[in-house]
């Protein structure tokens, strides 16, 4: 297991490096510098600004300086939020997004797996068809359509729940964003669970268990569920990435001061250092969470480790 872990860790480093290089080059390929659009300044002041932000150095030097900072968790200063560093801004908004994303993943797993099990056990029944129709809709309808519709129904028409983050407290303000974020993932997880459980239930060792007189629920609980969960587990990596992307939209719609909103604001403000920092942070997060899923997979299924 230790060798496997090390191998996977080493495999993640080139990906991360590629991400940082690509992002850095993209930002520096931009025509003009970050301070060009301000009023014309005397040449000495411009030179001073360039020197203060190390913009006068050759690109490879700047890159080394940047990557040296990133390794130590320093993404440099923000260009649009004066007096803040990129790290401070990320540190302030990330916990909000984590809360949102973790709850959405929890909801997606619990509801999705349960719905998938029910659909698989009642395979081809009307109930199965209804669950699968919902799942297809959930997959097709994007988060930025679901979220406004949820607001329209529950906040504007019925007025049961608050529409925005500010001006409300506690769990009620989390409910709609988490639901909007979780719905597509519930759909994916339900479809995966159903397909995989149906396949496992038709295998020989399940027939043996059935021949021994074990009830359906016991078979699912003790024999079928664990092997059936493997495809669902391997979907958790993409699911986390999708929830992170989705939270960009959801935070924008509900006005939640998380990482996604920070990212959109930074993009629209053309705050290069902030966008660069957030992209690298997101990428690292996704790569690391994928790694975690792979390790979990290896822990559950010993066949994977030996390859």
């Amino acid at each position, binding site marked *: 297991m230790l060798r496997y872990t090390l191998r996977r860790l080493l495999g993640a480093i080139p990906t991360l490096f590629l991400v940082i290089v690509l992002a850095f080059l*993209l930002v520096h390929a931009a025509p003009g510098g970050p301070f060009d659009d301000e009023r014309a300044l005397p040449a000495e002041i411009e030179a001073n600004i360039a020197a203060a932000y190390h913009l006068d150095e050759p690109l490879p030097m700047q890159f080394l300086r940047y990557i040296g900072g990133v390794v130590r968790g320093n993404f440099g200063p923000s260009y649009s939020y004066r007096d803040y560093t990129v790290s401070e801004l990320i540190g302030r908004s990330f916990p909000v997004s984590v809360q949102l994303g973790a709850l959405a993943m929890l909801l997606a797993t619990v509801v999705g797996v349960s719905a998938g099990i029910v659909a698989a056990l009642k395979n081809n029944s009307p109930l199965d068809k209804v669950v699968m129709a919902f799942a297809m809709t959930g997959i097709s309808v*994007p988060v930025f359509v679901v979220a406004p519709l949820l*607001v329209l129904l529950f906040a504007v028409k019925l007025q049961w729940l608050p529409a925005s983050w500010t001006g409300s407290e506690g769990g009620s303000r989390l409910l709609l964003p988490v639901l909007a974020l979780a719905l597509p993932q519930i759909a994916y997880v339900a479809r995966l669970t159903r397909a995989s459980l149906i396949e496992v239930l038709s295998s020989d060792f399940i027939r043996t268990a059935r021949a021994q007189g074990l009830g359906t629920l016991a078979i699912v609980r003790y024999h079928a569920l664990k092997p059936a969960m493997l495809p669902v587990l391997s979907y958790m990596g993409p699911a986390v990435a999708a929830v992170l992307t989705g939270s960009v939209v959801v935070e924008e719609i509900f006005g939640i001061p998380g990482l996604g909103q920070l990212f959109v604001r930074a993009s629209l403000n053309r705050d290069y250092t902030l966008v660069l920092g957030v992209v690298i942070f997101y990428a690292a997060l996704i790569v690391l969470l994928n790694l975690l899923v792979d390790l979990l997979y290896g822990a559950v299924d010993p066949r994977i480790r030996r390859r």
Partner: protein
Amino acid sequence: MSVVARIGSHLRTSKTVMVSGGTLCAIALIAIVAPWISPNEYLAADFSSILRAPTMSAGHIFGTDDLGRDLFVRTMMGVRVTFVVAIVASVVSLVIGVLYGATAGFVGGRVDGVMMRLVDTLYATPFIFFVILLLVVFERNFLLIFVAIGAINWLDMARIVRGQTLSLREREFVQAAQLIGVSTPRIIFRHIAPNLVGIVIVYVTLTIPQAILIESFLSFLGLGVQEPQTSLGKLVNDGTKQMEGASWILLIPATLLAAILLCFNFLGDGMRDLLDSRRSQ
């Protein structure tokens, strides 16, 4: 599966394909024709009829927005943009994916190993953030969005095409071509590529909704299509701002976008089932 059950499922999937494909064709046709014959202009603002609810009598069957612009024409123009982006992006991903996958699969060995390792690495990178970065850094133009979306979507295609090519490579007709000295590019174009058409068509139908999703996601955030042009994602965003007083501005493009995506997904799934059932026979 018994013969009867197989024929039954065959017909059922065919019906899914027919209905979803037909609906998409109808939407596309209306989007092409309607803006021409509609009496309302796409950009004409009419401040005497602001935020009118949809009615048949007033001539605005989808209502008007906060500038008094006719929403039916705007929505149809949005559908046009959405379809164009989807098709162009899919063609980009198709060309890159098929060439890459077929080369990796056909050449094989170490080249294949390196090429697929690169795909794996790219797979783990969150491309959507790079597209946003690209749009932040460069001017937001239409072409860039197409290329960026196509550049994300080719990975799946490359993997599938590679797998298919690997098995085609071992077939007798390819070996015969090699034996009589046909060059590798010619074998890929003339002998491998035609045999990939079926599976490629199915996967293109499945990448189209992904392309639509990315385009409308970017437009929703204000990073995609810019005024005065519009797309369904942008219209949904406009509707979100107006939903308390004028919910139709949100509901109409949202429903249409959902319907289009649902149809494409059903179409792709149905075609995949058809392809699988033909294989297993």
